[in-house]
């Protein structure tokens, strides 16, 4: 378990760096760290995934410094939503995919409200990119973490 946690911490930190450096510029509008939080929320026990959501949300809020703890709040909220939903529909992959999609839309809406502009085209683009990257990322991360 300890190795898994260390590997996930490294992965999330690297995701944060990719979000900060934006190697694809603004052509890619999704957020790797957010997708990493989705991954840990789906694959780790509640206590651990909650810890990751809280710590990395706080990290994102502090670097660069924000006036509100927006990411801490949204990561923790999404983590709790995913854990609670999966508690009742455990083992059904269709439900899991649906819940991931809902979490992405919810996060995009939260961000849109925060910046004061709800753009359906941007939300759609964020949703499609996030979903695609999430399923690719999940495959590789699962393999790496369980190796």
């Amino acid at each position, binding site marked *: 378990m300890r190795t898994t946690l260390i590997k996930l911490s490294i992965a999330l930190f690297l995701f944060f760096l990719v*979000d*900060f450096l934006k190697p694809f510029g603004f052509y890619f*509008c999704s957020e790797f760290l957010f997708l990493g939080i989705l991954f840990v929320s789906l694959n780790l026990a509640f206590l651990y995934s909650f810890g990751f959501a809280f710590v990395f949300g706080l990290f994102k809020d502090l670097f660069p410094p924000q006036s509100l703890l927006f990411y801490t709040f949204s990561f923790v909220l999404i983590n709790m939503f995913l854990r609670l939903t999966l508690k009742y529909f455990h083992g059904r992959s269709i439900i899991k995919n649906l819940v991931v999609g809902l979490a992405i839309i919810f996060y995009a809406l939260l*961000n849109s409200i925060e910046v004061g502009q709800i*753009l359906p085209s941007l939300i759609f683009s*964020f949703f499609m990119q996030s979903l695609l990257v999430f399923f690719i990322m999940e495959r590789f991360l699962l393999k790496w973490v369980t190796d």
Partner: protein
Amino acid sequence: MKTLEEENRRLRRALGIKERRPDLIYARVLGFYPSGFRKVAFIDLGKRDGIIKGTLAIDSQGYLLGKISQSFNEYSELILLDDPYFSLPVLIENKTAGLLKGTLWGSLKILYVEGDKNISIGDKVWLKYADLPIVVGRVQRVRETKNDFFLDIEVKPKSNVYSVREVFLLK
């Protein structure tokens, strides 16, 4: 090798523009605000280099890229044209002035332009900075709104805010 060539090309372009406009300061982009819903860059110059809030940034072609929203000792926060919190007074040709706003989706908006100003598609949007005309872009769409006193003006920016790696600050 390819990276070196690219670096050389960028530096040559940077030197070229500096010769034409000696009041420019070259800065590199360190990173970006880690969100898909903000367009903010962090540059490697700060207060100790004389960079203050409100300093304008242009690209290597001389087109407006954004403005400094916060300055720290060693780095500054550059809010790009397309960020939803970006706003700046601009001119449309020599017809009128308005407030430029970012939309997060490529094009920009100009607010508070009255319907009788004869704004048309292709009009140049620019601003004057210490007698230098800085081009922002061109009017892409003009719509009259039914219940509003002002026009709905969309502007296509000339600079490419999607892949900013270097900027020039106007001092």
